[in-house]
């Protein structure tokens, strides 16, 4: 049973550039139309949500999260595409935006409740429960302008928590109130979920998303980047948001005492584009850049891959180079060129660093733990865990035996 369905939904915004300050009025008027620029907040987004499923939507600012929220809650309409909503939908967005400071708590319950789509008799029926949940019994006839911010938020959430919808849209609301109240909110949402409410949760709070959702969609520049298991999708998001550069630079004071640091690590596909998602059997290139402060003798570079459970899977190492690596102060880079990724599908965490070959294990010149996550997807030539690069040659039982050129068959076999 599908409760929510988005079919190729796009949303375009018009951005109007300000005219040059000293342009004449007439010129401003003439260029009125040309000053518009289209910005696609969402582009051809399609997904659906099953009944009683809890879907999380994550992504960086500007990825289109709040646009989806606005479309689903009917605040704005799509530019193209179609949205199907099966059931009563309520959005729990920024609690308290419908409060009026002069009115009492009780009056505000009626006001806010009606704005959220409740009927008066429904509110009257639930009034006691709302007041109880918000823990505001003695202040309910006080104007809300006398409320503390915590009381304000509690009342807001309490009203929304009593909406009792078929589909519930959640914003960053869980980030409010004290810990005890937050706990209560999560419990309430879990309860709603158990009773069969479909939930769409849009948030930056990855822990809450992980806890609450059965499925997570990662948005990037208005398009779906990943859709699936919460752990995997969140890992992918985390890796893209974590900046290795910033991480290693975190302690500037520390840096001075260092002998060398890894300044960046990037993965590239066969077209030379930086990317974090590959297919088994596809080429992959890792480029590690570093900076040396003091002369170093006999060092090695490594890039290690771990499964989500923390199991060590594979690695690239500079040990494959012939000869000893000695470094002089300055900047350098090292490239690991892999012709075919052997890892099976999944998300892998990456460690990288510089070590002194003679130093005991664990003493590193610089080590970045779990600095990136790489996603590997299925390819049609992989059946199970490992991929072994191979070249296939065939001798058909015809008169003349011709050997195919290696490169051709290889390319055929991989893609």
């Amino acid at each position: 049973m599908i409760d929510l369905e988005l079919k190729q939904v796009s949303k375009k915004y018009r951005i109007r550039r300000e005219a040059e300050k000293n342009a004449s009025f007439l010129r401003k008027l003439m260029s009125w139309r040309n000053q518009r620029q289209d910005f696609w907040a969402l582009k051809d987004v399609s997904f659906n949500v099953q009944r009683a499923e809890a879907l999380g939507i994550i992504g960086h600012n500007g990825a289109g999260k709040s646009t989806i929220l606005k479309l689903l809650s009917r605040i704005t309409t799509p530019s193209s595409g179609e949205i199907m909503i099966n059931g009563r939908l309520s959005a729990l967005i920024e609690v308290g935006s419908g409060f009026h400071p002069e009115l009492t708590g009780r009056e505000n319950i009626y006001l806010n409740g009606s704005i959220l789509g409740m009927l008066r008799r429904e509110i009257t029926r639930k009034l006691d429960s709302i007041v109880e949940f918000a823990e505001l019994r003695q202040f309910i006839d006080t104007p809300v302008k006398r409320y503390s911010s915590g009381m304000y938020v509690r009342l807001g959430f309490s009203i929304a928590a009593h909406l009792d919808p078929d589909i519930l849209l959640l914003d960053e609301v869980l980030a409010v109130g004290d810990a005890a109240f937050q706990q209560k909110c999560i419990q309430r949402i879990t309860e709603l979920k158990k009773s069969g409410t479909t939930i769409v949760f849009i948030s930056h709070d990855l822990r809450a998303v992980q806890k609450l959702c059965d499925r997570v969609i990662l948005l990037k520049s208005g398009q779906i980047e990943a859709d699936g298991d919460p752990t995997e999708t969140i890992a992918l998001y985390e890796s893209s948001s974590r900046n290795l550069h910033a991480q290693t630079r975190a302690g500037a004071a520390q840096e001075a005492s260092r002998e060398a640091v890894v300044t960046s690590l990037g993965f590239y596909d066969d077209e030379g584009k930086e990317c974090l998602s590959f297919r088994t059997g596809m080429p992959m290139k890792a480029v590690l850049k570093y900076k040396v402060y003091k002369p170093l003798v006999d060092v090695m570079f490594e890039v290690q891959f771990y499964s989500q459970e923390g199991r060590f899977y594979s690695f690239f190492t500079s040990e494959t180079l012939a000869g000893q690596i000695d470094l002089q102060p300055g900047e350098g880079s090292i490239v690991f060129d892999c012709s075919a990724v052997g890892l099976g599908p999944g998300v892998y965490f990456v460690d990288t660093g510089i070590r002194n070959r003679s130093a005991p294990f664990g003493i590193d010149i610089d080590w970045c733990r779990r600095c990136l996550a790489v996603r590997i997807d299925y390819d049609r030539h992989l059946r199970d865990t490992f991929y072994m690069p191979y070249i296939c040659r065939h001798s058909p039982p015809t008169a003349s035996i011709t050997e195919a050129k290696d490169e051709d068959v290889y390319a055929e076999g991989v893609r």
Partner: protein
Amino acid sequence: MIVTPTATLPRDRHPRPIKIIRPVSFSPLDLLRELRGLWHYRDLFYTLTVHRIKVRYKQSVLGLAWAILQPLSLMLIYTVIFSVIAKLPSEGAPYAVFAYAALLPWTFFSTSLTSATTGLVSHSQLVTKVYFPREILPLTYVSASLFDFVIASSFLIALFVYYGVGLTVYALYAIPILVLLTALATAFGLFLSAVQVRFRDIGVAMPLLLQIWMFATPVVYPLSAVPQRLRSIYALNPTVGVIENFRRVMLQGVAPDLHSLATSAIAAAILLPLAYLYFKRVEATMADII
């Protein structure tokens, strides 16, 4: 202790409405569907109207008296200017009651328009956060002004008693006239508030516009004072018929002038659906531009 809200009722206790959201393509056929959606939100309309009235008079010493004071002070000013100084005709009635009988419906019309026009923009917080049929906002301003009208009417009755003006059976015409005036206020309120979302100039221009509009309507002078040759153009103003006839049936106690009343009625019948359609068109992307 964790208090949880009343147990959730079993699912599928109510029919699940299926809603399809598509890009804007508003046709007159959708009008009925939209009105049905509006009916669904009648509780919000009621709550917001009560809210407007409450908020307006909370923390004010004079409270409801303000509803009377507004037309009353205007009446006093105009009486001094137009009766004592300029000596305008008032069709036999004392000028004070003559002016008040027209200022009463006019104040309703003008406050409806002023408050409804800025109503959407001043609720931008709400409009960008929650969905509800947006026309409810301007509509509640009109109905709150209607409430003020009722309060201020009591003073008209007091004036009638003081000046010994007796009501006739024609005073009952005031009811359909008032309905017509509400329809006009709604039509203009919807249209102007939708325009205001994109062009804030409207809100700034409103006081001036209403000032001009008032002098183009028989409020401080009788319709009969308008030269005959200008009458046909003058009558195109839809508020002429309602304001003039309201005073006629209340103060003079004679039958309304059906010609001018019909003009207003036709105007309302055309403008109201048009304004609503325009409003719903703007509504679709209102949250993006507000």
